[in-house]
C-alpha cells in the first residue's frame, strides 16, 4: 500500500489533498443534499461528510485517490451515519482516531467498497430539494439565507456571521436551531409539484436575493457592499441550472449578474460614492452584463413578467450606456410603474418618483414624491435624498438644503453621507 502511495506522490499527479479540495468545491452540496435527504438530519449529514473528508485527507495520500472519489465519500459518510444511528453513545463519545483501526467504520476504505460506490452520475441530485427545505415556510425567514450559504455553498458559520453582522455564537445557534426544526418537524426533502410551486418558489428566490442584498455591515460603521456577491451569484446560477423553466429564477439570476457587473464602479479612486448615472461604463464588467442580458432574454421568452425580471430589466436599461446608447428615461419610468403596480414598497415608489423626474421633469417627480403620502416617508432616507436632489434641480435652494440636512441626519453610512454633503454644497454654489 505504501509503495502504491509513492506513485501518487509523484509531481505530475495531484496530491490526495488537492483532489479532495477539488471534489469538495464542486460536489459538497450534492453529497450533503443526498445524505440529508435520506435522514432529514442536516447536522448528522454534515458531521458524517466532515468525517469522510477527514478520512480522505488521512487515507488518500497513502492508499491512492479512489477512481470514484464522490462515490467513495458518499459510501464512507453513509456508513458513518448508519453507525451513528445504531448507537446513541457512538454519537458523542468516540474520537475519530480510535476508529481508524476498528470495524465497521473503516470498511468502506477497502477497495471493494470503493468499487461498489455509486458513480458520480448515479448520485441523485437533491440540491434543489435542499434549497426548498432551507426556504420552507416553517423556517424563520431570517435564517433561510444563512442556511443556504452553509448547506449549499459550504460557508462556515463564522463567515456568515460576519456578513450578517451578528456575533458568531448567535449565528451558529440560529443555524443549529433551524436544522433541528427541519428534522423534528419532518420537513420533506422534496421539490414542490407544479401546483405548490407558485407559493413555494418566491421564498427561495428571496433567500438567494438576500445573500446579495446585504448592503453593508450595520454594526461596523464601515461600508462593505456586496460582501457575499460571489456567493449570491453561485446560488442564483445553481437555481437557474436546476429550474431553467421558471422565468423568475432566470430573472433573479439576470438581476444579480447585471447588478454585480457595476459593483466595482460605485466607488471612485478616492473611495467616494458615484451615482449610477455618473458611473463610467468602462468600469462595468462586460462579461457579467452579457451573461445577465442573455438570462433576461431567456426569461422574457416565457411571457410571464415578475418582480425580478422587472428589476433586471431596469438594470439592463441602465446598461444601455455600456453599448454607447443613452438611457431611455421613458422606458425606465414605464418599468418602474409596472414594478410599483406589482410591489408597491416605499423604496419602489420613491424610485418611481425619481424616474418620473428624469422622464417628465423635476416638478413632476416632486409631485409624485408628495403623492406617496406614507407615514414611513419621514424616516426614509432615500425619500429625503431624492427630494433634495429634485428641489435643488428646481433651484429651490433653501428647501433643498433643508431636505439635504434631513437626508444627511438619517444617513449612517459614511460614504453616502459624504456624497450627500458634497451634493448639498454643490447646490449652494
Amino acid at each position: 500500500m505504501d509503495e502504491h502511495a509513492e506513485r501518487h506522490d509523484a509531481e505530475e499527479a495531484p496530491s490526495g489533498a488537492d483532489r479532495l479540495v477539488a471534489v469538495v468545491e464542486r460536489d459538497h452540496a450534492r453529497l450533503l443534499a443526498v445524505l440529508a435527504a435520506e435522514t432529514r438530519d442536516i447536522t448528522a449529514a454534515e458531521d458524517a461528510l466532515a468525517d469522510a473528508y477527514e478520512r480522505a485527507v488521512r487515507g488518500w495520500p497513502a492508499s491512492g485517490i479512489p477512481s470514484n472519489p464522490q462515490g467513495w465519500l458518499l459510501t464512507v459518510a453513509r456508513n458513518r451515519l448508519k453507525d451513528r444511528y445504531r448507537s446513541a453513545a457512538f454519537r458523542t463519545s468516540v474520537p475519530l482516531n480510535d476508529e481508524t483501526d476498528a470495524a465497521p467504520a473503516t470498511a468502506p476504505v477497502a477497495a471493494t467498497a470503493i468499487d461498489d460506490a455509486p458513480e458520480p452520475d448515479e448520485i441523485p441530485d437533491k440540491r434543489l430539494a435542499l434549497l426548498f427545505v432551507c426556504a420552507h415556510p416553517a423556517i424563520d425567514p431570517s435564517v433561510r439565507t444563512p442556511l443556504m450559504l452553509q448547506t449549499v455553498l459550504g460557508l462556515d458559520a463564522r463567515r456568515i456571521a460576519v456578513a450578517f453582522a451578528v456575533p458568531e455564537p448567535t449565528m451558529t445557534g440560529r443555524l443549529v436551531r433551524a436544522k433541528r426544526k427541519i428534522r423534528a418537524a419532518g420537513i420533506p426533502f422534496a421539490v414542490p409539484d407544479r401546483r405548490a410551486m407558485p407559493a413555494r418558489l418566491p421564498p427561495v428566490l428571496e433567500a438567494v436575493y438576500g445573500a446579495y442584498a446585504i448592503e453593508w455591515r450595520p454594526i461596523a460603521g464601515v461600508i462593505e457592499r456586496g460582501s457575499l456577491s460571489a456567493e449570491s451569484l453561485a446560488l442564483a446560477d445553481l437555481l437557474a441550472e436546476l429550474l431553467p423553466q421558471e422565468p423568475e429564477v432566470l430573472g433573479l439570476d439576470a438581476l444579480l449578474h447585471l447588478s454585480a457587473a457595476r459593483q466595482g464602479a460605485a466607488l471612485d479612486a478616492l473611495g467616494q460614492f458615484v451615482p449610477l448615472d455618473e458611473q463610467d461604463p468602462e468600469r462595468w464588467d462586460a462579461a457579467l452584463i452579457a451573461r445577465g442580458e442573455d438570462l433576461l432574454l431567456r426569461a422574457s421568452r416565457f411571457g410571464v413578467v415578475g418582480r425580478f425580471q422587472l428589476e433586471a430589466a431596469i438594470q439592463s436599461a441602465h446598461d444601455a450606456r455600456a453599448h454607447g446608447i443613452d438611457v431611455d428615461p421613458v422606458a425606465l419610468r414605464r418599468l418602474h410603474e409596472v414594478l410599483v403596480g406589482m410591489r408597491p414598497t416605499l423604496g419602489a415608489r420613491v424610485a418611481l418618483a425619481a424616474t418620473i423626474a428624469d422622464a417628465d421633469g423635476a416638478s413632476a417627480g416632486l409631485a409624485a414624491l408628495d403623492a406617496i403620502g406614507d407615514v414611513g416617508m419621514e424616516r426614509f432616507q432615500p425619500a429625503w435624498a431624492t427630494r433634495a436632489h429634485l428641489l435643488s434641480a428646481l433651484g429651490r435652494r433653501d428647501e433643498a438644503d433643508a431636505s439635504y440636512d434631513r437626508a444627511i441626519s438619517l444617513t449612517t453610512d459614511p460614504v453616502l453621507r459624504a456624497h450627500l454633503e458634497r451634493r448639498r454644497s454643490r447646490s449652494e454654489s
Partner: protein
Amino acid sequence: MRYALVLNNPELGDVDVSQEAVEAMQVAFGEYVKALDDAGVLITGEILQASDTATTVTLRGGSLEVQDGPFADTKDKLAGVFVLDVPDLDAALAWAEKCPGATYGVLEVRPVGIHTIGGTWVPDA
C-alpha cells in the same frame, strides 16, 4: 438635540461568548464610534464595567445606605451609554440600529432633558 442610547445586555459572565467574538465586537465598537465621530454627532460613549463592580448609594430611606451590587438585578444589565447630538429622534434611531450592542442587547433611546456645560445646567431644546 441630545439623545442617550442606553445599552442593556446580558453580561459576559452570564453567557457563553468566545474571546474571539468579544474581540470582534470590540473592533466593531471601535468602528462604530469612529463613524459617529466622523459624522460629528458623538458627545460621549461610556461602556461600564460589569454590574458586580457596582455600588449603590441612597438617602431615600432617611439615612445613608451604601450597598454592594447594582440597582436592579435583572437578566439584562445596564452596560453603557452613548450620548449623541442629532437633529431628531429618527436620526438617533438610525444610529441606534447600527450599534454593535443592538446585535446582542437592547438599546433604549431617550431624549436628554437637561445637560451640563461648564458646571451649569442647560435645558435641551
